[in-house]
């Protein structure tokens, strides 16, 4: 059969039901195979949209997301997506067409060295050199994308090779001598960690996106509840522990709660699970958690001791390691009363510094209230995606995520414009869920073209625009740290979102009164098909609390 037909066979063998993409000259053969290949193809309107949709699909379901693009500009349009997927460890496979082998290296029409361009941002990439390699390459790509620390894998397929006839035989085993993730966790280290936890007087469990990726939310919760361990999650880890709850400190980091950040600051033992001590978490590294010893559990050994030296490193998959740690800890039969003083201290912070805002005295919609209304309108049960900016931080703070894979955002790369395509992919993966994109009025313009895709493919995402007329997060920084010299942040004009929705064939709605907001949101959710709800919020509201960049947690403002 043709190599491209083998590609489809391999995709099906990997359980792929949907791919997102855009055709072009170099991947024409792939599209010919897709014509009656038995896999749903969602034709996107921009390769970036296709790539983020594949990410949204993967983030919501845990299955590998797949996007296709042609050579040259098609492939380069995927670059932001691939970088986004590597930063947040999203299992994705990108299959790009490449010019014919006889044109390679000649600056042929639509030639771009996409494997070279993406080398620093892929987990792995495979440049096909012989059509017979294709089936194995596809299976290797899926294996690498989904195992260990997940990530994006790129396969670049020259057009002539994709049309070649090959002798296809199903591949049932991939053998990669240089790729053997460690998943079990060292038993001695786990025992040592349990002892350290039993000896800690001021412990904090700090969980990140790795817990979500490992599908280890239940296992994390078990560990936290094996004693009264205070727990905090990163932006990527939200939903990894059911919030709110007695042991829940809230999110930590730049826009986390004071309680979570202060607890990290005073902790004597920090148990990091699938988290990577990003600068948005640590603030000033040299003053980060100065009294703490660190247990660091991560499937990627290179994360351990990268930013903060670990005292007890444990390389392994959270899903495997956490139950063992819980068992070891329980066996020690410790006395929870030793944590009494620590909880008193934590309760003081919680009482003194709850997450708060001043609500309006009239009908004006405060952005924080918008998220509270969203929580109410969805019973806290929707899949929420977001763009990047203030709205993202407010959504993280105020929508109390209590389940994994319900909060989908761009944490590591901070990519504006992901909200709509993430929602699109999440909705395809989870057709029975309500999926709401909390969009920034700036960000949404970056991938708005995917409204067409949602309308045509009947992907009923609800886009709730937090309309503040500003590139709000940048405005906030200019207000706070640049003497209010607003430079390039007032958008002056954004499209009429209602008309724009209608132009795309979707429903458009507008909300300007907090009294009717919840009802309008419910109406939008109950409306079949995609909807844009334009929510006018306070224009110059700031997102607090906040650790100014490069400052220690102690210096939180607001």
């Amino acid at each position, binding site marked *: 059969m043709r190599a491209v037909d083998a590609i489809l066979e391999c995709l099906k063998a990997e359980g792929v039901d949907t791919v997102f993409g855009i055709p072009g000259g170099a991947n024409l053969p792939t599209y010919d195979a897709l014509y009656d290949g038995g896999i749903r193809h969602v034709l996107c309107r921009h390769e970036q949209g296709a790539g983020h949709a594949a990410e949204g699909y993967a983030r919501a379901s845990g299955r590998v997301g797949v996007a296709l693009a042609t050579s040259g500009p098609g492939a380069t349009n995927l670059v932001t997506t691939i970088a986004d997927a590597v930063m947040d460890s999203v299992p994705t496979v990108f299959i790009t067409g490449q010019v014919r082998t006889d044109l390679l290296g000649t600056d042929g029409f639509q030639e771009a060295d996409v494997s070279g361009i993406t080398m620093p941002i892929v987990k792995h990439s495979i440049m096909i050199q012989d059509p017979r390699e294709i089936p194995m390459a596809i299976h290797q790509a899926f294996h690498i994308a989904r195992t260990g620390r997940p990530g994006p894998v790129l396969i670049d397929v020259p057009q002539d090779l994709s049309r070649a006839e090959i002798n296809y035989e199903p591949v049932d085993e991939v053998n990669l001598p240089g790729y053997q993730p460690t998943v079990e966790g060292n038993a001695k280290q786990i025992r040592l960690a349990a002892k350290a936890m039993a000896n800690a007087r001021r412990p904090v469990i700090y969980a990140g996106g790795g817990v979500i990726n490992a599908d280890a939310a239940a296992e994390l919760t078990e560990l936290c509840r094996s004693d009264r361990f205070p727990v905090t999650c990163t932006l990527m880890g939200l939903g990894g522990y059911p919030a709110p709850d007695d042991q829940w400190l809230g999110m930590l980091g730049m826009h986390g709660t004071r309680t979570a950040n202060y607890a990290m600051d005073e902790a004597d033992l920090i148990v990091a699970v699938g988290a990577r001590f990003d600068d948005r978490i640590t603030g000033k590294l040299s003053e980060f958690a100065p009294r703490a010893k660190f247990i660091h559990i991560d499937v990627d050994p290179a994360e*351990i001791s990268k930013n903060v030296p670990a005292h007890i490193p444990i390389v392994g998959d959270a899903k495997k390691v956490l139950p063992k740690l819980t068992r070891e800890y329980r066996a020690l039969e410790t006395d929870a009363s030793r944590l009494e003083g620590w909880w008193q201290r934590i309760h003081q912070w919680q009482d003194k510094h709850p997450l708060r805002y001043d609500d309006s005295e009239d009908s004006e919609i405060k952005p924080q209230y918008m998220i509270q209304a969203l929580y109410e309108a969805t019973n806290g049960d929707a899949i929420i995606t977001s763009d990047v900016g203030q709205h993202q931080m407010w959504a993280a703070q105020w929508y109390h995520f209590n389940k994994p894979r319900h909060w989908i955002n761009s944490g590591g790369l901070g990519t504006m414009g992901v909200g709509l395509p993430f929602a699109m992919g999440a909705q395809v993966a989870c057709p029975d869920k309500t999926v709401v994109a909390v969009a920034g009025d700036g960000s949404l313009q970056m991938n708005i073209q995917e409204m067409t895709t949602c309308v045509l493919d009947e992907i009923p995402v609800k886009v709730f625009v937090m309309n503040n007329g500003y590139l709000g997060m940048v405005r906030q920084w200019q207000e706070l740290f640049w003497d209010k010299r607003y430079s390039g942040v007032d958008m002056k004009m954004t499209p009429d979102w209602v008309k724009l929705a209608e132009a795309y064939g979707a429903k458009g709605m507008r909300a300007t009164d907090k009294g009717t907001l919840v009802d309008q949101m419910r109406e939008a959710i109950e409306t079949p098909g995609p909807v844009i709800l334009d929510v006018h919020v306070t224009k110059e509201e700031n997102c607090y609390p906040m650790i100014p960049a490069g400052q220690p947690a102690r210096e939180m403002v607001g």
Partner: protein
Amino acid sequence: MGRFAGVMGEPGTKEVFNLADLEAAGGIHTGRRHILTMLVENKPGVLARVAGLFSRRGFNIDTLAVGPTDDPMLSRMTLTLDGALHPIDQVTKQLHKLVNVIKIRDLEPAEAVARELALFKVAADSETRGQVMQFAEIFRGNVIDVSKRSITIEVTGTDDKIEAFEQVIRPFGLIEMVRTGEIAISRGRSAT
């Protein structure tokens, strides 16, 4: 009260566990020079991946030598870097993440023999040529080219030896020097 509150060790033993005694394991600067030897798949782009990783992460390589091995599917890369500038464990762990890297070893100096080849082109006329050749002999170098006003010498050895030779030869007028970068192999019967 449960069985253990506060300091404790292995149940049923006298071992005492103290949180304060835990020491950081990793991310440490050793302060010495390291030789990393790696087996990588002999495929296009592998060198670019390794080199790209170094530049992206801000790791400084002192030397890099690449060549075939006894197995045509594999190449050997040997690189040296300064453990005062980087935590070597972070470097090796990042390299391990490259799928095409099969094996990495941070060779302990005592467990390995390392050699480098260098070519020195030295200004030498009939007057000084004898002296230069004498030095070459002391360092067990070979003369591989001679012209009226220059002489080219090949020296093999550890990087210390090559640097020492450079020192003695420099006053004569060093026109050019080319070095391969060190390669190394473990001592004894077992494979590196």
